[in-house]
């Protein structure tokens, strides 16, 4: 019996609005401790900080919707940063599309390995993670690669009208583009169908393998774009630049309320999730919480946020 179906609409609304509510409550609590947080400049900076994380998590959300997981995104973003910084002098502006395309291809390769050899996505992308990291180390000679001329990436790190960070627009644009792709084409319902009930999707004649490969390719592509955003703000590429963003990215997806088991979730949820995670990462120290207690609070709040936002009616067994 479909449990969710019997829910009254109000309950459904609560479940839907929960991530947003959690975000607002957290923001209010932090603002109470440190009122400066609510200034426009401060909020926009917060959004700016959330941008690379949002982009990184965007594509990975689609993989999660398929019922898989992509642990390679952060390493791939690091590799992208190295490649971009090394190619920018030669390719100028073309380096950005080249890097993003290459990362999408790398994602697709992982998807192919996952589909063709039937190795769980967790293991494939774990392997991908070590592989991309090693390649990034090799390509960079285990050192930071500076961008002597930052013009190819300046668009990703300016403030439009002196106020709105362009990275935020890039993040929102990426989200909107992916959301549109999922909505305008059948891909959205295919991805969710695969995540909810792969046997049914298969027997409905869906191209399961292709859907999964596309999901991993999108995930790789957005990871590459996240790498570009990071290069833009650090003016260099480094083989471990984005590595620390892996767990926050997965946390953003889960805190947003997308079920890690697949099927249930949405891109806007990841947007909100990235906001919550960024608040926790930056807001706590900003609000003057001592580093020791910051870590404790982070632990408590992230579990609390997930407890609030996940929709338990969709999954019977929680692992």
């Amino acid at each position, binding site marked *: 019996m479909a449990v969710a179906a019997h829910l009254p609409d109000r309950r459904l609304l609560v479940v839907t609005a929960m991530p947003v509510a959690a975000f607002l409550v957290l923001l209010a609590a932090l603002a109470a401790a440190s009122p400066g947080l609510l200034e426009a400049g401060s909020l926009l900076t917060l959004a700016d900080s959330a941008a690379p994380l949002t982009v990184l998590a965007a594509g990975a959300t689609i993989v999660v919707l398929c*019922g*898989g997981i992509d642990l390679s995104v952060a390493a791939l973003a690091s590799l992208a940063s190295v490649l971009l910084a090394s190619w920018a002098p030669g390719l100028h502006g073309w380096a950005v599309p080249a890097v993003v395309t290459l990362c999408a291809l790398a994602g697709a390769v992982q998807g192919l390995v*996952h589909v063709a*050899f*039937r*190795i*769980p*996505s*967790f*293991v*494939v992308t*774990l*392997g991908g993670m*070590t*592989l991309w*990291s*090693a390649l990034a*180390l*090799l390509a960079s000679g*285990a050192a930071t690669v500076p961008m002597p001329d930052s013009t190819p990436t300046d668009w990703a790190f300016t403030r439009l009208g002196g106020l709105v960070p362009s990275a935020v627009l890039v993040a929102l644009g990426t989200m909107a583009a992916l959301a549109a792709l999922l909505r305008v084409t059948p891909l959205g319902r295919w991805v969710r169908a695969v995540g909810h009930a*792969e*046997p049914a999707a298969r027997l409905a004649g869906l191209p399961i393998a292709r859907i999964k490969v596309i999901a991993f390719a999108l995930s790789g592509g957005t990871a590459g774009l996240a790498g570009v955003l990071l290069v833009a703000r650090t003016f260099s590429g480094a083989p471990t630049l984005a590595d620390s963003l892996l*767990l926050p990215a*997965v*946390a953003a997806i*889960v805190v947003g309320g997308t079920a*890690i088991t*697949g099927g249930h979730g949405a891109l806007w949820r990841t947007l909100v999730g990235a906001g919550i995670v960024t608040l926790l990462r930056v807001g706590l120290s900003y609000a003057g919480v001592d*580093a*020791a*207690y*910051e*870590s*404790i*609070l*982070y*632990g*408590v709040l*992230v*579990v609390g946020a*997930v*407890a609030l936002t*996940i929709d*338990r009616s969709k999954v*019977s*067994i*929680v*692992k």
Partner: protein
Amino acid sequence: MAERIQTYGPAAALLALVAVFAVLSPQFRTLGNLQNLLDAGAVLAVVTIGATYVLILGCIDLSAAGVMGACALAVSLLVANSRTALDLGPLGVLLVVALGAAFGCLSGVLSVGLKVPSFMTTLGVSAIGLGVATVLFAGVQPTVSDPWLLQWASGRWLGFTRLTYLALATVALAWLVQRYTRLGRYALAIGGGEDILRLSGIRVGRYKVAAFTLAGACYGLAAVMITAQLGSGIVQAGAGLSFAAITAAVVGGTQLAGGRGGVAHSMVGVLILTVLANGLVLIGVSPYAQRAVQGVIVVFAVGATLWPLRHRLEVVK
């Protein structure tokens, strides 16, 4: 056949590695290196036991780093040390193992009670553990001066360190628990079919919490061991060990989906990783290449063990 490859494949891989290194490096073949190998693998073995108990449930435990940090600090403050006047000795060690168990219990209770995926709760508990460790650290690193505890790492019987024996004893105990107790068998069963256990009226939640608690206790013990080795309480004592332990378990044949593998499998994985790290240094592989080589071998090992099963797996996630 597929069944056999899954069970004995990792062991065969381990033997192959040992053979290759033994041929390539005369130092690898020495008794001294065996003693060193087992000593080097001791901490990872104990952490991996903990991780294995959670993995066979079908859950995942990423809390080792934080829990071990808190426990390492706690033990270095409870036995004779440079900062506090306490000198609890063995009692202190027991208290710290209990502290680890309490952290594990917290992960379990949060996962079961709040129905939050274990992935998130253990990550949260890890952060909490790191915070507790930082509070205990308070800017001054405690140095352990308790000779009894320090003897764990330096004292030797028959050439092997006491830590080696402690790890072996823990492995044996964990294997017995898994084979002969209700907790061990039910943990396996939960991984195999949680819903069926519920149907049979078994309180699954309790056993899940118990498994997490056991894992926490293992992390506590591992933290004591590492503190004995390093001689000081270090917050980063468990850094990277969650990941290494899960990798070891998976390489050994304990599956992430739960219900398959166990302590014996995971220990083969621990040995593979330890032999690899040791052997690559001994045969003189460049430090740059070591990590990449390890990664490739790990993926290859997992791929090879899953290969014969690929037709049976209708849905792979």
